[in-house]
């Protein structure tokens, strides 16, 4: 591989896109998770849970727009192939996101009697969007296989990802609340964690056997050695998180953010594993990132903007999180 711009630019953009997806999955993950947990929370708890994500969710969802945007602008060929192949699941995802996004706002503004209806729609939208994302991931992992096997695998990943989001949501609730709701969230986390671990293990085992190409990327000496920290570290983090759930909440609410950070780390490891499985393809087994990329001069002009703007975005995102730091309190417009 030579290191000139036409080679490097698509690689950089693949990295940026990956980063955007990872940030999206972590940040909107807890939003979606809280939506899923709406099904087991009571009315007053739901208000607190919304207050825990209210100021952030718009910015969180923007990372999805950036990820799809980067796919669109940096890899236009892949964008068309992937999205036409996933036409129906993408549609289902969008319906979920629409329902979730509007219910979030409507529930706070409608006459009191209608609030319950929008709470249910919020749950429905969140679970639909989570399942659709997982399904798409599963189908994509198998090279956009939309046969029966692909669909079954997609369904498995859909459940796994939804459980993982629920775990993220529970961890966020632990961080942002106190008292009875916080204790309840610890139990939610424990339940979701079991499902997440089972799902993640199933996906990790099924993936290499479902795709010979991915098998070859993982089970070859010495790559196996370099890659072994990924699953081992993930397993250790899972066990550690499991132990944490028995000691939470701690006095003075110490370490209440730790479960969330641990989960984020697990997500990152899993994501790195997936990224390694796909590289250098952007459409598995069909298009490499270089074949699908836009013209170098177009990528260069986006890169200039990205390099300047991305740090600013990250800076003010942190600022927003700081302004609304601490335990969630009732959100009011005035």
């Amino acid at each position, binding site marked *: 591989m030579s290191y000139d711009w036409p080679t490097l630019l698509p690689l950089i953009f693949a990295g940026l896109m990956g980063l955007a997806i990872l940030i999206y999955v972590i940040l909107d993950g807890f939003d979606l998770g809280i939506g899923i947990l709406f099904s087991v929370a009571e009315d007053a708890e739901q208000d607190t849970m919304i207050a825990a994500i209210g100021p952030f969710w*718009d*910015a969180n969802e923007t990372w999805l727009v950036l990820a799809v945007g980067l796919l669109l602008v940096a890899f236009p060929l892949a964008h068309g192939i992937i999205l036409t192949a996933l036409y129906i699941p993408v549609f289902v995802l969008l319906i979920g996101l*629409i329902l979730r996004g509007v219910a979030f706002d409507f529930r706070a503004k409608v006459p009191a009697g209608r609030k319950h209806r929008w709470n249910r729609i919020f749950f429905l939208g969140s679970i639909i969007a989570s399942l659709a994302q997982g399904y798409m991931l599963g189908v994509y992992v198998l090279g956009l296989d939309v046969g029966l096997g692909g669909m079954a695998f997609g369904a498995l990943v859909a459940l796994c990802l939804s459980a993982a989001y629920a775990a993220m949501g529970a961890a966020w609730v632990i961080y942002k609340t106190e008292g009875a709701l916080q204790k309840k969230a610890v139990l939610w986390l424990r339940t979701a964690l079991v499902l997440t671990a089972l799902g993640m293990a199933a996906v990790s085992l099924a993936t290499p056997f479902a795709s010979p190409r991915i098998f070859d990327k993982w089970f070859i000496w010495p790559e196996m050695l370099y890659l072994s920290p990924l699953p081992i570290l993930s397993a250790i983090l899972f066990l550690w998180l499991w132990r944490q759930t028995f000691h939470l909440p701690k006095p003075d609410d110490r370490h209440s953010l730790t479960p969330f950070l641990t989960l984020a780390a697990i997500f990152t490891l899993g994501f790195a594993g997936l990224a390694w499985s796909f590289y250098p393809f952007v459409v598995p087994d069909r298009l490499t990132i270089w074949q699908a990329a836009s*013209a170098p*001069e*177009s990528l260069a002009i986006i890169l200039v903007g990205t390099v300047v703007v991305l740090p600013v975005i990250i800076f003010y995102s942190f600022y927003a999180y700081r302004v609304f730091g601490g335990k969630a309190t009732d959100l009011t417009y005035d």
Partner: protein
Amino acid sequence: MDPLILSRIQFGANISFHILFPTITIALGWVLLFFKLRYNATGDSAWMRAYFTWVKVFALSFAMGVVSGVTMSFQFGTNWPGYMEKVGNIAGPLLAYEILTAFFLEAAFLGIMLFGFRRVSNRVHTMATVLVAGGTTLSAFWIIALNSWMQTPAGFEMRDGVAHAVDWWAIVFNPSMPYRLVHMLLASGLTVSFLIAGLSALRYLQGDRSESMWKALRTGVFTAAILIPIQIFAGDQHGLNTLEHQPQKVAAMEANWNTGPNVPLILFAIPDEAAKENKFELAIPDGASLILRHSASGVVPGLNDYPGNHPPVFPVFWGFRIMVGTGLLMLAVSWSAAFFLKRRHGLPKPLAMLMVPMALSGWLATLAGWYTTEIGRQPWLVTGVLKTADAVGPIAGSHVALTLAVYLILYALLLIAYLGVLVHLALKAAKDGDTSPLPGVLNAPMSQPAAGE
């Protein structure tokens, strides 16, 4: 079922639904800033109360805009993959800059603007309002730049059938871009001022005479009255620009079948594309020549110059007329309302009742205008570069039919819910305005304007 037709209807439905909400947020951000600055300057809490009422509308509109915008960005890939394949090198960076510079800015500071009034200093809260308003406007700038480029492409060259950027300045500031941007920003301003005026009129009719109602009402009415003549002038300039760069669109707007001098201005007609003539025509002699060429004998382009290469006449012709008609109605209503507020310090009841449905006049004019300009671009997606029919993806018609049906139902329900909440918020504000009068308007009689107005 033809996936092309269905995809076009689906995208049309989606963009029609989407555009309603940015149209509100673009200008409403600046109105909120105005409320905030007035509050900062006067310390009058009625300004802040107006802010809190309208910031909710902003939040809801923003959420509707985001979710429908996400849907649209996915539809580029699901339904129109040929678009990015052919012109992705140009559309890509413009969209990327919109997301990077504008969208994140709005989304990140929205939380502070909505919920941060008591959490950050007043200065930071004002700053957040500035950034959100600036973000929505910047967003509009990039999107209009791209849309205008699709109408009047410039600054590129074709290599192996794919568009490559040559001059970014020429791409962004393409021939129709400044006109389109000004026209759209003014449209947003008018939409918001009529929305505010209309919902405030509803509060007024409910007996609300609170200071915050008056402040919102006057802001809406006076803004509308100032913006509408500017918009009529800007629209005329935009039309002349279209005549220069997209004459076939103007020919369709005027339903003028033959190029020539002394072209009449048609007020009413049913254009018949098969017979290439207008039925039930009612026209002013030489009118179109006068407006477009400023001379009765001015030559106006006709559709006969563009056989098989001009847009469908009926929707473009009527879209244009609905837009202009709504604009004239806006002029009449906003100027009479301004007169009564200024001279009589009140609103006659019939005028207030007319203003309530006029709350949505901005939407009507904007949609009609968009149909004129977007359908007027057909059969091209990017004028002279890419035909709409060549951009559609390999999807089954039945799939598009299914998704289209669900989208339509969902959009209809959401629109009803949205309008319901707007009315609910106005009525709630009316109720609160009565029960908690501010100092200076204590027990103001219902029939009289508040003290100090």
